[in-house]
């Protein structure tokens, strides 16, 4: 026997489904076209309906059952032998609720559908509420002050006049004088009569909005938010993105490792054959990382006198002036630079011939390889972004901009030379530049010469107004092709010809000693006018900053344009 409840629910569900399908109100293909809002609404309505209908009526067995053998309804079946009523067979509660939900959903899809839901959403659009939380329409809501009817404010007594008032009251004084009460200024009416305030955006129930309309409006706002959700499409896109990223997982993990591991953004190395300028045997640039190298250049002296044996200190000072001294404008990040003192005499040749091996031997490989790998990963991330159709991140600078290798060799037996080549390091093109000097001079124009040569090493020769005594520039290894004669601007006896337009004889004429020093204003040692530096009487008053500033500014413009950071 089957309980009537189960039978009725099953017949109702089947009949509803058959009727809707038969009448063409329900098409299987239309189920895939249901919008998210429609699905949510129908689901909510079906759940509410099932709850209302099935409350208290889906538990327990039915009192009336259908006898399938005799096809007749019976109220109860009694087992005579046992003396108990046999319960009718019923579908489980969840099955009954499911069939009811199916019935209501079928009705909803057949009768409402996407079109109906959209019409319901815009139901209240034709009569929108005022949009205000407060109702300024009633004039009596905010009564304006009436100046004509407002009583006059009482006079204000002057402070400290109690005795005067007492004397006046007793007749000892004929007037109050300055203690006479002054009329208080009536408060002026506020600018309530001005233009009405613009309505504030109101997110609560509006003042003239019925409760049902408010509820419906909030539901419509929720539906708008849900309508933008595309779970299937979004999931598909997400799956595609994950698949693309899996192909680039090495690049993604390596990029994160570089960020977490603080891989440098650039790495510039300079090998110098001179000994370290400090007694402890290491340069300040090689000191522990906790000491910021920028702190040193806060107090970097403009210029100083050099003693014999301070060649390394002079080179370091010149590098500091060229790259890191803040008084000359934009600086570079000194944490990306490493000076390797005591470099072997063949450092330049080995850098060109076997760069990776030399870098490993010198302990610079990890930094250089890290920076180059970081750059390579940046290129890979650009390719990934292109594959995903996203905006491309900025292209990393060329490898030669973020990694540079330089070497300075000071050897008396070698001719001065400067040059550069491109080598392959970790599969990327990196520039190697070399500078060979026979000697570092510490007096006269020697320091300026060091500055000029180091600038040429780092940034190449000046394009305009270049030094008239450029070193021999060669693309080959520095030791393989000896260069021609030494720089004419740095002769051993210090005699340098004056540049055209600056006559040294003006300095030594009779009278006007101050005015004659004006000839130094246009005597640029970087353009060849080295003669002022050869005179000891001008050493203390030589306009060092005014000479260095334009040169270093120009150098930094050229140098920083060639360099970059990841």
């Amino acid at each position, binding site marked *: 026997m089957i309980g009537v409840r189960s039978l009725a629910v099953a017949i109702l569900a089947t009949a509803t489904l058959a009727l809707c399908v038969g009448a063409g109100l329900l098409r299987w293909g239309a189920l895939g076209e249901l919008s998210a809002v429609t699905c949510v609404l129908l689901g909510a309505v079906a759940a509410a309906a099932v709850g209302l209908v099935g409350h208290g009526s889906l538990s327990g067995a039915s009192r009336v059952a259908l006898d399938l053998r005799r096809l007749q309804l019976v109220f109860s079946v009694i087992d005579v032998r046992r003396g108990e009523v046999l319960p009718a067979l019923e579908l489980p509660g969840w099955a009954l609720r499911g069939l009811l939900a199916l019935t209501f959903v079928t009705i909803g899809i057949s009768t409402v559908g996407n079109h109906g839901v959209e019409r319901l959403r815009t139901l209240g659009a034709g009569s929108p509420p005022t949009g205000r939380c407060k109702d300024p329409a009633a004039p009596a809501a905010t009564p304006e002050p009436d100046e004509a009817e407002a009583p006059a404010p009482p006079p204000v007594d002057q402070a400290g006049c109690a005795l005067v008032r007492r004397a006046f009251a007793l007749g000892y004084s004929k007037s109050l004088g300055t203690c006479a009460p002054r009329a208080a200024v009536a408060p002026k009416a506020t600018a309530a009569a001005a233009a009405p305030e613009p309505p504030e955006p109101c997110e609560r129930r509006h003042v003239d909005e019925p409760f049902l309309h408010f509820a419906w409006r909030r539901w419509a706002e929720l539906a708008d938010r849900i309508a933008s959700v595309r779970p299937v499409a979004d999931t598909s896109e997400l799956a595609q993105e994950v698949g693309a990223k899996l192909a680039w997982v090495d690049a993604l993990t390596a990029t994160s490792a570089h960020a977490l591991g603080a891989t440098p953004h650039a790495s510039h190395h300079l090998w110098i054959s001179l000994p370290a300028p400090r007694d402890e045997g290491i340069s300040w640039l090689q000191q522990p990382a906790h000491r910021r190298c920028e702190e040193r250049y806060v107090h970097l002296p403009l210029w100083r006198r050099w003693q014999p044996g301070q060649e390394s200190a002079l080179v370091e000072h010149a590098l500091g002036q060229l790259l890191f001294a803040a008084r000359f404008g934009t600086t570079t990040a000194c944490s990306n630079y490493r000076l390797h003192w005591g470099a072997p005499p063949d450092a330049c040749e080995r850098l060109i011939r076997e760069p990776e091996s030399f870098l490993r031997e010198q302990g610079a490989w990890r930094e250089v390889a890290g920076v180059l790998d970081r750059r390579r990963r940046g290129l890979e991330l650009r390719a990934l972004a292109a594959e995903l159709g996203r905006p491309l991140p900025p292209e990393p600078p060329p490898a030669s901009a973020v990694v540079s290798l330089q070497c300075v060799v000071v050897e008396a037996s070698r001719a001065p030379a400067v040059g550069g080549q491109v080598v392959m390091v970790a599969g990327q093109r990196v520039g190697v530049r070399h500078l060979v000097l026979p000697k570092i001079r510490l007096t006269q124009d020697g320091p300026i010469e060091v500055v000029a040569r180091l600038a040429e090493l780092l940034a190449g020769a000046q394009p305009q107004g270049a030094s008239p005594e450029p070193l021999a520039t060669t693309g080959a290894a520095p030791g393989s092709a000896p260069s021609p004669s030494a720089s004419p601007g740095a002769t051993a006896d210090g005699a340098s010809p004056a540049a055209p337009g600056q006559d040294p004889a003006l300095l030594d004429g009779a009278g*006007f000693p101050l*005015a004659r020093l004006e000839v130094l204003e246009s005597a640029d040692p970087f353009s060849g006018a080295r003669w002022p530096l050869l005179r000891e*009487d001008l*050493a203390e008053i030589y306009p060092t900053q*005014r000479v260095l500033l334009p040169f270093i500014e120009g150098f930094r413009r050229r140098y920083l344009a060639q360099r970059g950071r990841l």
Partner: protein
Amino acid sequence: MGAAVAVVVVSSQTPGAAATRATEARVAALAQSLRALAALGAEAPRLEAELATASRQRCGSGERPPVLPCLLLLAQEVCASRPAAARASCVAAADVMLVNLRSANDWVDEATRVRLVRGAADYHRALLEELSARYAALAAELVLEESSLLAELALERAPASPLGAPSAPARASVPTVQPAVLDRFCSRRDHRIRPPRCNAPSATCVPSLSWQRCVAALAWFVTQEPAVVVPAPRSTSTVPADHSPAGEPP
């Protein structure tokens, strides 16, 4: 005896000795210029105007400073027209004025110069007033550092030094700043970070200055602005009068 002479000769030719001689020569020249400017008094602005006018007419004007050889020749001609007794003072005073003429564009930015040209009836007079405001800022720097410079000079020099101690008794109508202090201040000023140029109109912006431009500006300001008194230090030693640097009596 010969060895002692050789030692003296060698020591006088060492770089340190050369620098000392150069310092003494500069200080002497500064002292002469300061005395000359102070002695001219009200005549100094007239001489300066005469040189400025002649410089504009003969030595170029505008954005570029006057050509130096032309200025020197011009100043020699102007001073040659003075009485013989006043020629030396004229040359010493003109020395300062020539430097100030050449450095005017570095002191006053272009926007300010354009404003003076458009708004002032006498451009040169207006420019001098503008320069005076800027010289005052430099003089304020000197005042702030003078005491430390004096102490430094006093430590360096022996009492019998030909230049004497910095704190020397002064005569009347002499400038209120000591040449040695000026020399030391201006030679070291750029060792600190200074703006290379003043791009914005500001009377308090004093750019990087070469030595001669710094001392010329201060010499002019100190001698032509009597309201500004640089406090003189206490006299600590006796100094020969003919070698004493200028200074106010305490």
